[in-house]
């Protein structure tokens, strides 16, 4: 069980801000593949992974990061703060 969060246009394309996902994925990339296989809107949102950023437990990381013991994974476009 993992909390998956979406922000900005990722949230808009998928249509929800967060959900709890039952997964056997061991890396972020595996989780993305599981999500893409679900529905068209996920496939669309994750079609170009180079346009996305990911945080595991609120720390920025890479798509090959492990999910062991992770409680929260977030997907979003490059940040535009400041």
């Amino acid at each position, binding site marked *: 069980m993992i909390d998956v969060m979406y922000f*900005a*246009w990722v949230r808009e394309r998928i249509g929800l801000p967060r959900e709890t996902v039952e997964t056997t994925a061991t890396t972020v990339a595996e989780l993305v593949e599981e999500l893409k296989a679900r529905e068209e809107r996920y496939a669309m949102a994750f079609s170009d992974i180079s346009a996305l950023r990911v945080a595991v437990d*609120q720390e920025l990381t890479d798509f090959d990061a492990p999910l062991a013991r992770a409680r929260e994974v977030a997907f979003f*476009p*490059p*940040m*535009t703060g400041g």
Partner: protein
Amino acid sequence: MDIRVQEGPFAQGEELDAFAKGRPDVGAVVSFTGLVRDLAPDPMKHMEIEHYPGMTERAITTIAEEAQQRWSLADVLVIHRYGRLRPGDTIMMVATASRHRADAFAAAEFLMDYLKSRAPFWKKEVTGDDAEWVAAKDEDEAALDRWTPRD
């Protein structure tokens, strides 16, 4: 170190006064304020800033701690708003206090470069019927390079 992520407005002048006050060892205070621009010919009705509660505060704290390790700073202030903002509104401010101006300037620029691209905020510009997410700029990502230690 004072870090605030808030929906409501803040008064940059009062914040600067309070930040600079009562610091006998400080000779230099630098502040940066980011404002919502209102650029013709496409007048923006408002800006929506989305953020990632929890991670935002963590990311800014990490950035501010890194600044304190790199430069000799007496104090750091970061205020960043989220939610709906109007043209002319202050989006955020950063202030640094140091004995010397070089440290205060470098730390403020460092904080801004990292806040731009590493703090989880996303801006959306709403103009008339249209709404568009602000795209990250290559130059903002490139600006981080100058802070990367070369060895």
